[in-house]
């Protein structure tokens, strides 16, 4: 079975589209996570392919569904954290022996495809719809939600996985070379790390609103604290270390004003969800969590890097699209799990949403109040990438678990979990979800 990238028409990227036509008619029921690792140890059973299959099987088991009854599969084929399989290096024989191969030997090793998954999960004998949502978990979720709503599948798995190899992030490939192609050089000659654009926006934010980098410390403490309560997360599994304000303020700069801890940690991990129709969900093992809407931003910056004005205009636009599609307002949101990898843009997301009435420039003061899971204003109860490692999916898992009432020690207690928002990655350019404990 071939799988193509999702067409642009599956995403709700424009204002004025009205209520999502499938509002409350699509539900998440199953969740599956693989164990996490900092890097691949070279064994087939810990490859990105293997952990993907494990996450998928766990999601199926969690939902209590017969695998043969699943008719849809959506995944993000890109699995790199920034590490790439060296050109020309042969695929290890152990990998070739361990899995059924497609015609692309990097499938399961440094990327994924729906055909590779289906070849290696023969129990998924009923899949008739397969599509790629390339970019991150949120994009794949939008595709799966739209596909189930549109009737392209009635029971659909959604998968996102990451691989990470030895070596420092982003320092191989073109960065190690002596010359760059002309079109790349126009941006890359100045040697900026990936967080540079966010650092610029944060610097502008601080100047405009009179804020300081140190004001991010409570957000960092809260995120890691929440992450350590997430048993599926990297930090909980391998390095149960809290972040203190002193740790944060002493961290070395990467691109000042972004420091090391403002950057998330690349890891290996996979997560899968099982989506189905609201009608079918009622008969599955877990409490359904309904999707009220999804929205996307496809805004491009005018020139080299987004200005604060561009970012704020776009986050506000995203909020209007999201609320319009879901038929809610900011006042309906119980908690938020917007993206945090980089930490210095989380405030752009929640200010754009008007979470708890926030206006532009107010989030860092908000961080100085009670933003814990026990308080009335929970910020990122998942812990996000800072609390759990770079995957861009903790935010979604947490929304589903919180609304199902099975977030364990991480369960929010200061608010009744009814409606949640999650999504990203970037404030300008991303995909976003509204989840609900009821169909609305």
């Amino acid at each position, binding site marked *: 079975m071939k799988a193509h990238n999702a067409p642009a028409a599956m995403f709700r990227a424009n204002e004025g589209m009205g209520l999502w036509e499938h509002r409350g008619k699509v539900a998440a029921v199953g969740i599956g996570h693989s164990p996490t690792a900092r890097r691949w140890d070279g064994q087939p059973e810990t490859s990105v392919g293997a952990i993907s299959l494990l996450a998928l099987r766990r999601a199926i088991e969690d939902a209590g569904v017969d695998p043969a009854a699943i008719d849809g599969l959506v995944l993000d084929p890109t699995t790199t954290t920034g590490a790439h399989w060296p050109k020309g290096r042969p695929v290890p024989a152990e990998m070739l022996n361990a899995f059924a191969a497609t015609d692309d030997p990097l499938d399961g090793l440094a990327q994924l495809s729906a055909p590779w998954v289906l070849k290696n999960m023969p129990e998924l004998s009923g899949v008739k719809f397969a599509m790629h949502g390339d970019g991150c978990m949120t994009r794949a979720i939008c595709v799966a939600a739209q596909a189930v709503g549109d009737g392209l599948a009635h029971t659909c798995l959604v998968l996102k996985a990451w691989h990470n190899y030895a070596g420092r992030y982003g320092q191989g490939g073109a*960065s190690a070379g*002596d010359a760059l*192609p002309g079109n790349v050089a126009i941006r890359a*000659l100045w040697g900026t790390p*990936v967080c540079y654009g966010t650092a610029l926006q944060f610097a502008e934010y601080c100047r405009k609103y009179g804020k300081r980098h140190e004001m991010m410390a409570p957000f960092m403490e809260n995120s890691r604290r929440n992450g350590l309560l997430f048993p599926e997360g990297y930090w909980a599994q391998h390095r149960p270390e809290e972040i203190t304000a002193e740790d944060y303020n002493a961290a070395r*700069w990467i691109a000042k004003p972004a420091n090391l801890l403002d950057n998330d940690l690349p890891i290996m991990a996979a997560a899968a969800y099982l989506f189905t129709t609201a009608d079918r969900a009622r008969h599955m093992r877990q409490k359904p969590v309904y999707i009220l809407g999804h929205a996307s931003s496809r805004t491009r910056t*005018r020139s*080299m890097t987004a200005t604060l004005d561009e970012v704020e205009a776009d986050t506000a636009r995203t909020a209007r699209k999201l609320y319009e599609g879901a038929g809610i307002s900011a006042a309906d949101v119980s908690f938020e799990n917007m993206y945090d990898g980089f930490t210095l843009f989380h405030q752009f997301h929640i200010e754009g949403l008007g979470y708890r009435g926030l206006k532009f420039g107010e989030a860092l003061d908000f961080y100085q109040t009670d933003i814990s899971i026990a308080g009335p204003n929970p910020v990122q109860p998942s812990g996000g990438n800072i609390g759990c490692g770079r995957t861009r999916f903790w935010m979604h898992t947490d929304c589903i678990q919180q609304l199902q009432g099975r977030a364990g020690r991480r369960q929010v207690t200061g608010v009744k979990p009814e409606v949640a928002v999650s999504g990203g990655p970037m404030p300008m350019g991303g995909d976003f979800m509204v989840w609900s404990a009821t169909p609305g």
Partner: protein
Amino acid sequence: MKQGVAPDELTRPFWEAANAGRLVIQRCAACDRLQHPPSRRCGECRADTALEWRQMSGRGVIQNYAVVHDSPVRLLQADQPFNVAVIALEEDSDIQMYSHLPGTPVDEVPLGAAVEVIFEATANGQRVPEWRVVGAEA
């Protein structure tokens, strides 16, 4: 030292102008709009037949900056930490270019200051537009 540049079809006019000591930026004649980085289509009207290269004055202002302490680029790591500023062009303040601001001390960047273009050699001799604060010593 910056990495060298291998001009491609799209950006060759930009790099050839830099070697000649001129700063050129892509302009869409159909909607009279500058754009940078270069693209095969106008980002506004999507025209692909009306793009031309227009010479700039080489003047601008410093719009923003960050200080890079941990660059992924091997050839620049010996120079860390270094400034990377965003320059807004005089002709259109929405058009930006990056600069190491040669001559400006690290983290002492005068935001809003006037800058002028200079051309600096990269590792393979290709020259690249850079920017210097007006009045600063070379």
